[in-house]
């Protein structure tokens, strides 16, 4: 029996590079998650009574909700295009560990949708009048939080492949699962903004990330196989 002669890690790298190449082929679109994030954040002050004190109070909440929504919106495209054009089918037939290849796709998704938010979040926080001292914590928390979201979301995206109404169903599946991320993340941010130590919630976020890293790729792989039936 001949086996695939490409090493699994190299194969994962190839998948990662393909997804990044595809994204940068239309590079303006790389900016969409950030712009969406900024826009949702802009909606709030319009809808609220713009008292500066009120805005500062809700800053952490708005940043987190907008970041999660933005990253989640991008999730929908994670596998859908690949299913429609038959690429995902072919990925399962490469003889490489499917979980690893899907993890590579998820990492690409995070690089494109989570990483930019890490840089944009402090800007929004400051515009809402939050204290700049909390920025380091905010950025770490957003980085960890969006990474967990990408991983959990990848399972959700794979599960919803079989059905037509993607984005809404996806949100329904994913939102309850990421509630802990939101709680710990917002708490870390709020603590840091009040000048207290945010270590506790940050460690919890890290633990969530490790848990997600070890479990979700296999769940995604199983979900993808089911969706192809």
């Amino acid at each position, binding site marked *: 029996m001949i086996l695939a002669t490409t090493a699994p890690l190299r194969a994962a790298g190839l998948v990662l590079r393909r997804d990044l190449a595809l994204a940068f082929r239309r590079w303006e679109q790389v900016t969409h998650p950030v712009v969406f994030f900024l826009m949702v954040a802009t909606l709030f002050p319009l809808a609220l009574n*713009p008292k500066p004190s009120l805005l500062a109070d809700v800053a952490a909440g708005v940043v987190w909700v907008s970041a999660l929504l933005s990253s989640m919106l991008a999730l929908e495209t994670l596998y859908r295009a690949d299913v429609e054009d038959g690429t995902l089918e072919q990925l399962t037939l490469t003889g490489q560990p499917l979980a690893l290849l899907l993890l590579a796709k998820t990492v690409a998704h995070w690089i494109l949708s989570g990483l930019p938010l890490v840089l944009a979040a402090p800007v929004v926080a400051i515009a809402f009048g939050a204290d700049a001292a909390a920025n380091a914590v905010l950025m770490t928390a957003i980085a960890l939080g969006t990474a967990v979201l990408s991983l959990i979301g990848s399972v959700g995206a794979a599960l919803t492949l079989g059905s037509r109404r993607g984005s809404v169903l996806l949100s329904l599946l994913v939102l309850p699962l990421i509630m802990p991320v939101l709680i710990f993340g917002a708490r870390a941010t709020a603590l840091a903004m009040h000048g207290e130590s945010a270590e506790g919630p940050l460690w919890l976020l890290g633990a969530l990330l490790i848990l997600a890293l070890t479990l979700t790729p296999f769940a995604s792989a199983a979900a993808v196989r089911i969706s192809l039936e």
Partner: protein
Amino acid sequence: MGTWTWFHKLSSPPHCYRIAGQLIPWFAIPAALLIVAGIYGGLVRAPADYQQGDAFRIIYVHAPAAWLSLMCYTVMAVAAAVGLVWRIKLAHALAAATAPIGASFALLCLATGSIWGKPMWGTWWTWDARLTSQLILLFLYLGYQALRSAYDDIGKADRASAVLAIVGVVNVPIIHFSVNWWNSLHQGSTVLRRGGPAMPASMLVPLILCFFGFTFLYAALACVRVRAEVLRRERNAHWLQDLAGRRGRTESAT
């Protein structure tokens, strides 16, 4: 009928490329003169404001940039409508050329406003109606550009983005009147208001000079960008190859 042939001749790509090239100095030179005069008048001649001191002088960049960002959007929408209705490619080219310039003015307005806001209101940014609506104007420009870049075919990008520009133009009056509709932190209309400007002439005249300077600057930049747009659209056309050939020959001759 006569006007129509004239119109179509003007809107033919080679003609337009040439005319736009010839117009550039006629816009660029007055722009430079007016802006220099306005800035001199504003920074050196105008008296310091009795409330704001010297900080107010940033108005000579801020207000013209704000007005131009609104004007550019209007120009863009009108050009897009003309292009859509009469299928004139040149009008689309003008709309496409105007968008990034307008976006830059919007950005400039936001930046100078922020810089001004720090001493005046003690903050870089507040979520007040005018400020937010100006930010949203920037988003409108960005959306327009994002939509254009989502299409590979220039013709399709033209027509699709034209629809968007036309629909979006309703926001222009909203931005302009936002200060009147919502009590906001931002200055009410001081220049364009009923009962004449509320400003001494020594402050007002440089402001007006700057405004016209910025307008000419826009016209010059638009000519440059329209030429680039025409080149991009017509890269297969014969007249361009002729033009390039002629240039090449004259260059090799000299």
